[in-house]
């Protein structure tokens, strides 16, 4: 009987390691393991992974994603730290909306990084949608204003605005997002209708700080988790959802135009526990 008890402790450590390696974070893992130990106390036949899956699904289904439905002119702003996949995600989303037969205008709001506008224009060509731009170094709030104005005048249902990558610790850059918001509101009072915070699945616990600051200062409405085609599990979205209750709209699973899929809680949890 003692031997059996010892095996259980090793298995518990193995499960805890699995959850930690998925980037769930110490707090979330402690809560999950506490729940598991509680269930196992009963002594009856329990599949530990089934318990964990059940608990994780509960947490991830709290805020189901709102579908992207055209209604008047909808303005979508993509934000996030450097290199996470904002521009690529925008390109994929533009292609998806265009393929649905809905008009899209893409706005080159990253006027800072080398060849950012060229990169976005290539994506515009790939998606078959127009891209509005000014020169490098221009004011992103100004091009956002122009984009919203043009779309509203033409009745274009979707305006997708790319922004420069920025670390949430840089106040002047976070203030720039606020300026973009106010600029959009001058054209369309409810804009931006969506603010997508793009998160890289390889990100560790810093993802929580990113989400908190962007949520507080940029009015994030949805999360997008990219690079899930890699080996990283993206578990940091669990504590993010627990604290901020944001829906996950999409998941990026590659670098191609079709590699953006709706977030599916069960598939995601299976990936975490794999």
């Amino acid at each position: 009987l003692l031997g059996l008890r010892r095996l259980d402790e090793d298995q518990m450590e193995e499960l805890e390691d699995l959850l930690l390696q998925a980037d769930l974070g110490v707090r979330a893992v402690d809560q999950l393991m506490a729940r598991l130990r509680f269930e196992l106390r009963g002594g009856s036949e329990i599949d530990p992974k089934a318990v964990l899956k059940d608990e994780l699904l509960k947490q991830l289904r709290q805020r189901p994603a709102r579908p992207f439905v055209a209604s008047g002119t909808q303005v979508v702003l993509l934000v996030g730290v450097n290199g996470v996949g904002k521009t690529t995600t925008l390109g994929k989303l533009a292609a998806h909306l265009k393929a649905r037969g809905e008009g899209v205008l893409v706005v080159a709001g990253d006027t800072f990084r080398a060849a950012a506008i060229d990169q976005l224009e290539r994506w515009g060509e790939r998606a078959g949608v127009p891209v509005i731009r000014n020169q490098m170094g221009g004011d992103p709030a100004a091009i956002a204003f122009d984009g919203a104005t043009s779309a509203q005048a033409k009745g274009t249902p979707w305006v997708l605005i790319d922004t420069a990558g920025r670390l949430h610790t840089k106040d002047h850059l976070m203030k720039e997002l606020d300026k973009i918001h106010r600029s959009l509101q001058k054209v369309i009072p409810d804009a931006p209708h969506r603010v997508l915070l793009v998160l890289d699945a390889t990100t560790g616990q810093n993802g929580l700080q990113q989400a908190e600051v962007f949520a507080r200062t940029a009015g994030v409405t949805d999360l997008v988790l990219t690079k899930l085609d890699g080996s990283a599990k993206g578990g940091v979205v669990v504590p993010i959802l627990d604290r901020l209750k944001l829906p996950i709209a999409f998941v990026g699973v590659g670098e191609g135009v079709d590699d953006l899929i709706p977030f599916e809680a069960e598939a995601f949890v299976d990936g975490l526990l794999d």
Partner: protein
Amino acid sequence: SLTQKLSQAMKTLRGQSKLTEANLEAVLREVRMALLEADVHVSVARTFLQRVKEKALGAEVMQGLNPAQAFIDIVHRELVEIMGGQAPEHPITFASKPPTVVMMVGLQGAGKTTTCGKLAVFLKKLGRSPLLVPADVYRPAAIEQLHVVAREAGVPSFRTDVKDPVAICAAALAEAKLKGWDTVILDTAGRLHLDEGLMEELVRIKAATSPDEIFFVADAMTGQDAVRSATAFHEKLGITGVVLTKTDGDTRGGAAFSIKQATGQPLKFVGEGEKLEDFQRFHPDRMAQRILG
């Protein structure tokens, strides 16, 4: 902070003259928590704590006025030691016969292209004449990006109509030998270590150019995956150094420790901003302080 947490844990150990296996557990738990919250890999933290435990056991730590601080010093010292100790070596091994070839590799979006420009500026200050080579033919406007970065750095970049990354790198190397540039910096496309075809491409670029340095460029905010990706790149290519980027944020940077432990390769540089001058030698003591919080 960790010092405060350890002081709390150590209050219960007051009056004991020596650290024993039993009374050390609570203290080690606090350190483990700090490491995991800092994104240090689970196995790396485990191995490290075992090492710290051995150093601390039997130590006279408890005699001092501030056992928590003394314990932290042991932890800090060990962390610094593992991440590069005094780091006296020159960050780049220059080839005896020019040009020196530096190859940048890593996952998508880590900061390779920007780092190529930063390294070029760094080398120019040392009196070298670098040539930047755009070998990312996949990402839209990646080649343009490298040319813009080169222009900003005030260094030449290789131009060609050749479309194959391996051929581009080989041609650039030949050009450098002909024209007398003494350092060739190869910017490769971001890729997943899971992508066998693209990992093979790196092997072919390596075979064609015999790099003197292969730098794994890693994002400082990487979590547990750092060990997996760094190990895969190292096993496939034999990386010779690591550049940690985006350290100007508030990420604790445990990935630095994980990558060092997993690959055994030196942490050479940090990128601490988007500008080309935001580039510095890696300092293990600064990183250790950040990881411990």
